[in-house]
């Protein structure tokens, strides 16, 4: 396997969620969310009603992946911040470390300057949190069965049932 998958436990999730909520409030955002680089939504805060966050997450990751590809062609390591301006809503996308993407959607109640500043602050905190998570995942992978995974005892029957 190239990388290990992302595994998040309750404690970590709560901390990250709180950090995101803080950013959301301080940046006066409409919707703030975290996506892993493969397009899976980690968590979101704000006006999610009527917004297809799953698709947004996947497209965000596609967006970062495509600009990352462009960066490489130009000899850049990465474009770590993307900004899209709309008539009403704007999207600020930034990379947190190597594997997580922070997205802030805001309108005229906020400003690019404020969002950029706050996102940077949050990013610094989250980088550290995710680093710890990935270190922990690697460690747990080394020690087989150190923590009991719900998948350790899955049977083919369980899987059959999924498809009804």
């Amino acid at each position: 396997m190239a990388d290990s998958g992302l595994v998040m436990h309750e404690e970590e999730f709560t901390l990250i969620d709180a950090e995101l909520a803080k950013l959301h409030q301080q940046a006066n955002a409409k919707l703030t969310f975290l996506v892993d680089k493969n397009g899976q939504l980690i968590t979101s805060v704000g006006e999610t009603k009527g917004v297809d966050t799953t698709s947004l997450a996947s497209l965000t990751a596609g967006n970062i992946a495509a600009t990352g590809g462009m960066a490489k062609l130009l000899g850049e390591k990465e474009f770590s911040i993307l900004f899209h301006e709309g008539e009403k809503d704007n999207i600020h996308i930034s990379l947190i470390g190597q594997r997580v993407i922070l997205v802030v959607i805001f309108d005229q109640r906020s400003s690019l300057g404020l969002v950029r500043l706050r996102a940077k602050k949050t990013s610094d905190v989250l980088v550290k949190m995710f680093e710890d998570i990935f270190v922990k995942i690697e460690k747990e992978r080394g020690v087989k069965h150190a923590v009991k995974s719900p998948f350790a005892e899955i049977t083919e029957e369980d899987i059959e049932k999924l498809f009804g």
Partner: protein
Amino acid sequence: MSFINYSAREINCKIVYYGPGLCGKTTNLLYIYKKTNPDSKGKMISLATETERTLFFDFLPLSLGSIRGFKVRFHLYTVPGQVFYDASRKLILRGVDGVVFVGDSQVERMEANVESMENLRKNLQEQGFNPDTIPCVVQYNKRDLPNVVPVAEMDKALNARKAPIFEAVAMSGTGVFDTLKEVSKQVILELKKQA
């Protein structure tokens, strides 16, 4: 790359449909979308050209049910099959948990099939995956057409690792869910192995 969230008690897995241009990858997803009940699926996103060729990817999130109290979500992606979109294919393969290789059964597409399979193996390797062990299913599509290559022959050319195969007519749905089910099973069993 699977994402296990103990807080929300859910697990997300990424499955990528690969294969030469026009082999029927998007058609597989469209059929799955059509036949899945509304509670279990999200919106299908297609980033396509005016002529409905995949430009970047198709995306379909499925949430089929729970295993041991964990909601299991599959994110299905297709790659653009046309040769010159290789950069995009590499991006979409990132973090993949399982691959479906869709082959086009028509005689005149055999060369394209072989080329695409080689391209898949090379790109998987580049991303650090072992192409011989990653969860994988091979689907021989368009079996309804008159000029198809016998399965044994396709196997010989495309399936050296002897992955499970399914004959399919994606347009009418034959083999589509069998393929999905098999690759999902392999992906989940892989998670079990790593548990």
